[in-house]
Every structure is written in structure tokens, then in C-alpha cells.
């Protein structure tokens, strides 16, 4: 067993960190957490800027085959995620680059790949995901929005919801019911669509804190070219499962927390209460140290996933375990940091707020990771059913 990176990987990592460190200097102060990309115009602009910079270096196509503009390995992708997480740099479209592209590479026709992959690797087109519906959340296959084929088009009617960044995205990928008569799981098609198509209405859904990245998307006779499907008609469920398999190890989020931990330590060292620095309080020391232990464990399992993926091995159980662990650690981090800050833990971005209000924001935003991409309860089902072989609920 060997945790050592190759010389080449070390050199790549160094470059990733150097570039991200430079980009951090250009980051707008309103960027408080990655969700800011969807909430604040100047953060979205920064996101697009970073995407272009990364595209120039070929970093949006890490672990892609060279014929589609790819280079590097899965391990490079993880090292890049570390650097972006630590320095808090957006620029990698979680939907286009991280979810859709690997799915297209495996499951799409050559025509689709040739049309849609280049704009992704060039950082030109940003995507959103059109999955959940008001009555189809974890049980996604019960979705009701229809895409009925008419000639060489699909006509879409219905409503999607919890669509992160749909108000900013150029394109969306989604699943729609294409054969209302067929049984569940055999009636769904995976469709790519231009978000500017007439008949699409995007409305924001205010998150707990009043802002947030979420939208709902209404479809009113939206005509989409029939060629824009991935996989076969009515066989979209297989594509859904494939895409779910490309979920991330959470390395960006984990490294972002490592940075937050450094900031928390600094805050504890510099802030006095009861005549001494917070850092001298044994209870605070213990709680911060516990976070450090859990963070190290989160990073360890992320490396485990990277190692499996680097060898093209399945990481189903570990990916679910990592998602549960790092997302709930995010919540624990927010709880501990806001506790330590005392009354300041409730203050939003302002001159009174420690860490520009990042901890207050995390206290509210932690649910996004816990609930999205398959709730943690669904992840526990996945571990129990597919990993531990426990009987599945009927």
C-alpha cells in the first residue's frame, strides 16, 4: 500500500495550487462559499472567468480521452479538486464538467459527444440539472413531466424543481417521461435542452436564508430536437444510474473545510473572551480537534475513492459513505464554529461577522449537500442494500 504521489502528480498538484492561489487574489469579496456563484452576479462572472482560465490549461477535461480535448488522469482530477477546494475557486461546472461529460463519454452517440463535449471542455457552456419534481424527489422514477415525441421533436410539459443555478445555465440535462403508458423505470428518456427554448420559465426558490442557488423550471410546450437524447428512448433510467455513479468524492468540499479549519484556529487564537484567547479554553480545543480528526478521516476516504476510480473500479459504497460523512461533517463544522463564535455566530456578512459570515451561512447552507445528489438517507439505503446486502424494502 502506497500513498505517495508520482513525481508527475506532485508537479501537477503544485501547478494546480499555484494557479488557484493566484486566482484567489482576484476573487470578489462577496464570494462566501461556493453557492455564491449562483447567487451573486460578480461571483458568476468570476466563475466564468476561472472556467476560461482552466479551459486554456486543459483542466476542464482531466481524465477525458484525448480525442475530446482531455488530458491527465483521474488522480489529477482529484488533485485539482483539492487545490480548488483549499483556495475556494469555482470555474468547474459541477453539472457540465463533473456529471454530464463523463456520462456522455460513456453513454452518448458520437454525434452527441461531438456536439456537446467541446463547449464543456472549453468552458463556454454552463449546465443545470433537471431531475427532481414536486412529487418526485428521492423516488425520481415517479416523475410526471412528459416529453412526447412529435416528428423529429419532443414536446415537453410539466415542472422541475430544486434546479441549482437554472437561472444562469445555458443548457440543461434532464429526465422526462416519454411513454406515459409504460411501467416505471421503463418510460424515461434523458434529454439535453437549450434553456433559452421558448416555453421555459425559470423562477427562483428562496432558500432558508432567503437567497440560495435553487430554481424551479416550468415547461409549457417546449420543443426540443429529438436527436438531443442520451442513450435510447425510454431507457433513460440507465443513464440516471450511470450519472449518479460519477458523483464526486467530495474532495473540493473537504479541502474547503481544511481551509475553514485554519481560519477557525486563527480566530480562536486571536479572539479573547474572559481575559484569554478562545484557544486556551480546553472545551474549545477539544471540539476543534475533533473536527480536525473527522476532516482527516473524510480526506482519507476521498483518497480511497480516487484510488478506486483511478483503476476504473466501482466505488459505490465508499462514494455513498463519503457523501454522508463529508456533508454531515459540514454541518458539524458549522455548528461548532458558530458555537465558538458565541453571539457573533449568528451575524450575517458585515463588519461584525467573523469570517465574513461564512459560518452563519454554513449553518444554513449545510443542508444543500446533505439533501442533494441523493439524500443521506438514500445513501444509507445504498450502502445497506447494495453494499451490505440487506433485504430491500418493498
Amino acid at each position, binding site marked *: 500500500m502506497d500513498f505517495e504521489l508520482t513525481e508527475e502528480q506532485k508537479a501537477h498538484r503544485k501547478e494546480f495550487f499555484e494557479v488557484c492561489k493566484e486566482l484567489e487574489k482576484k476573487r470578489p469579496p462577496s464570494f462566501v462559499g461556493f453557492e455564491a456563484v449562483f447567487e451573486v452576479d460578480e461571483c458568476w462572472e468570476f466563475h466564468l472567468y476561472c472556467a476560461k482560465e482552466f479551459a486554456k490549461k486543459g483542466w476542464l477535461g482531466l481524465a477525458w480521452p484525448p480525442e475530446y480535448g482531455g488530458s491527465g488522469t483521474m488522480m489529477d482530477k482529484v488533485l485539482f479538486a483539492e487545490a480548488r477546494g483549499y483556495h475556494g475557486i469555482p470555474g468547474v461546472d459541477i453539472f457540465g464538467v463533473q456529471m454530464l461529460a463523463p456520462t456522455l463519454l460513456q453513454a452518448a452517440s458520437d454525434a452527441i459527444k461531438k456536439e456537446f463535449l467541446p463547449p464543456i471542455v472549453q468552458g463556454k457552456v454552463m449546465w443545470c440539472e433537471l431531475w427532481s419534481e414536486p412529487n418526485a424527489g428521492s423516488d425520481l422514477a415517479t416523475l410526471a413531466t412528459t416529453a412526447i415525441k412529435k416528428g423529429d421533436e419532443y414536446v415537453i410539459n410539466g415542472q422541475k424543481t430544486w434546479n441549482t443555478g437554472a437561472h444562469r445555465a445555458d443548457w440543461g440535462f434532464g429526465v422526462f417521461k416519454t411513454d406515459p403508458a409504460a411501467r416505471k423505470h421503463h418510460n424515461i428518456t434523458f434529454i439535453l435542452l437549450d434553456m433559452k427554448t421558448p416555453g421555459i420559465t425559470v423562477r427562483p426558490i428562496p432558500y432558508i436564508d432567503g437567497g440560495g442557488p435553487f430554481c424551479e423550471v416550468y415547461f409549457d410546450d417546449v420543443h426540443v430536437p429529438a436527436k438531443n437524447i442520451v442513450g435510447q428512448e425510454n431507457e433513460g433510467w440507465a443513464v440516471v444510474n450511470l450519472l449518479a455513479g460519477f458523483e464526486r468524492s467530495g474532495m473540493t468540499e473537504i479541502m474547503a473545510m481544511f481551509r475553514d479549519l485554519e481560519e477557525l484556529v486563527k480566530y480562536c487564537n486571536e479572539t479573547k473572551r474572559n481575559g484569554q484567547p478562545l484557544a486556551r479554553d480546553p472545551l474549545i480545543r477539544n471540539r476543534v480537534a475533533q473536527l480536525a480528526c473527522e476532516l482527516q478521516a473524510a480526506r*482519507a476516504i476521498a483518497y480511497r475513492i480516487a484510488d478506486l476510480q483511478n483503476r476504473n473500479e466501482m466505488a459505490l459504497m465508499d462514494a455513498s*459513505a463519503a457523501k454522508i460523512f463529508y456533508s454531515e461533517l459540514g454541518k458539524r463544522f458549522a455548528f461548532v464554529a458558530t458555537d465558538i463564535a458565541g453571539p457573533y455566530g449568528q451575524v450575517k456578512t458585515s463588519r461584525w461577522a467573523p469570517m465574513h459570515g461564512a459560518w452563519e451561512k454554513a449553518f444554513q447552507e449545510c443542508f444543500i449537500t446533505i439533501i442533494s445528489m441523493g439524500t443521506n438517507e438514500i445513501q444509507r439505503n445504498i450502502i445497506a442494500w447494495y453494499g451490505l446486502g440487506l433485504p430491500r424494502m418493498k
Partner: protein
Amino acid sequence: MDLRFTEAQEILKKMARDFLTTECPKTLVRELEKSEKGYSPELWKKMAELGWMGLVIPEEYEGMGYTFQDLTVLLEEAGRNILPGPLISTVISTFPILEAGTEEQKKELLPKIARGELIITTALLEAEGTFNAYGIAAKATPKGDDFIINGTKLFVEMAHVANYTICVTRTKDGTSPEKGITLFLVDSKAPGISCEVMPTIAADKLCEVRFENVTVPKKNMLGKIDEGWPIVEMMLRKGAIAKCAESIGAIQTCVEMTVAYSKERVQYDRPIGAFQALQHIMADMWTSMETGRYLVYEVAWMESEGQPCAKEASLAKAYVNEAYKNVGQWAIRLHGAIATSHDHDIPLYYRRSKAADTTYGGTDFHRELVAQKIGLI
């Protein structure tokens, strides 16, 4: 990066698993808990033949010359099967000899340890029960060519059967507690030593060892006079990692037994493992194991490579301590009343989760070290 076991490690792992499954059934574990010795000399001999006590001892001293990481692979298997006896205490006490011993000491002791002829242990803790240097009060006073040791050591693993005890003593009251610590190899038969087994949760034969005017020749000093604390720190670090590996093995058994039982036990006309209330807990138990596992593998690799890893060792020990206790208690609860029976196997593991926790530093001790190492002033 390749996080798979090497071929040699796979062989070691399989051999250990097969051997312990046959040679160390739970009936033996229970028997040894009740026995006076706490280990099986027959089993010890067989383990020596397999080279376990000499695993990390270089070949020139009749050892196997394996790495520290290989050792943790073996100890994970020992933990799976909760192998009782002085394996860890002997192996961890070997490191001060390997790293600080004179050539004479190495030649004298290492081959015997590798052959299974010597059981050794380390006497560190005293009345305060702390792994800090503050706790060391036992005095070693020079007298001619000897030192005279006086003091009482507690929680000394398997001292009642050890041939040698590495005694951590205070030889000078320095400016800081870490200064003035000296280690001695003490023959257990030396006059003035008395030993009594303490009744502990895992019946793992932790001893109170009293030193009353015990004469130790100067040549038995391990390392330099007054400068023994770094050796203790090295031993504690390696011991903490070793204990983590052992705990991961034990956690895995707890998870496997609980999952297996939940598939067999029927209530309300279905296996209890079909209930999500239980499934989610088992998913969390698995997650605890898997997160802890790679945390431990990474620090074992660092230690093996000679990289500084005091912080990582403390991060791992604090994490795995909690994981083992937590998985252990859920293993009992998911089994239900049956696992509260003294005759059930799960309590053997649950009781050891507390023992493993305290050995080489409990959670709060290591969290404080972490606090220092992440820069809290």
C-alpha cells in the same frame, strides 16, 4: 498512489486470518480471560514459528525484516480475532531496543524476541494515569555501576509473564517534565520487583508493578541518560497506530457479525435487517469503519516511510477510539438482548473497545495533541 495491499501483505493477511481462525477460537479467548497467564504459551510458540514477534526485526537479528506497515496488516487480523496475549506489548516494546539500543543489547535481545523466547513490556503509566511526562515519578538513582529504581507503575501490559520490562524512570528533575527521563531494561526476576494483575474490563492482564530498591546495571540503560522521553514518544506513536490497526480489525468483525445476524433474526415475519431503522445504523457503522480504515492506513504508511506523523497518529487514534466504542455499542443494540449475555461474542469486542481506547492514549489526550499540532496556542 496505490491503496491496495501488496502481494506480500495479502499473503501475510490471509495466513494470519486462517491461522487465528483455527488456533484462536473464541473459546480460547474466554479461557484466557479467566486464566492466570492471559496467553497461551503453545499459541505463542506457533506465532513465533510464523515470525510474528520478529516481523519488524531485521534479518541480521533473526527477524523477518518486514515494514511497520506490514506489522499493522498483521495486527488488523489480530484485532479481527481479538487475539489475547503479549503480541502488541512485545512488538511495541521492541522498537526502543531497535531504535535506541546498543549493538550489544540488540544482539542479546532481538533474536530471542524473534524466536518467541522473550516476552517484554513497557512500564510507563503511574498513579496519575497520564501519558504525559508529568506522570513519571519513579526514580532511578545512580549507585556505582548500577541504578536503583523505586516507584510504582500501573497498567503495565502482561508484566506478570514478561521476562523484561522497559521501565520509564525519572533520573533528574529538569526544567520541563520531558527532561530527565531515562529508560531501563529490567529483568523481571530482579529482587525488589513485585507484580499484581489489575482487574480490567477486557481481562487483558494489566499489572501494577512495584519497584523497591531494584538494582539495574548501567549497561541495561536504553538510550541516553535523561534523554529518554523522545523514545517514549516514538513508542507511543507507533503503539497508537498499532492499536488503531487492531481496532479497525475488531470494528470490521462487529460490523460483519451484526449484518449477518440481522439477516437471520426474524421478527414481525421478516429479517430485522429489512428494517430501515437498523439498516441506516449499519450503514453508519460501515462508514465509521471505512473512514477510520484509510485514516489508519495512511498514517501507518507515513510511519513506515519514516515521515513525521505525530499529528496524524493522534488524529487517527482519537478518531478510531470513538469509532470502535460507537460501533461496539451499536453492535450490541442491534443484536438485542442476546448480545448482553456474557456468553455472546459481541461483548468480548465491546469490552475491548474501552481497553483499546485507553491504551497509548485516550481520545481527549490525543485531541489535545491535535489541538497543539493544528496551531491552537
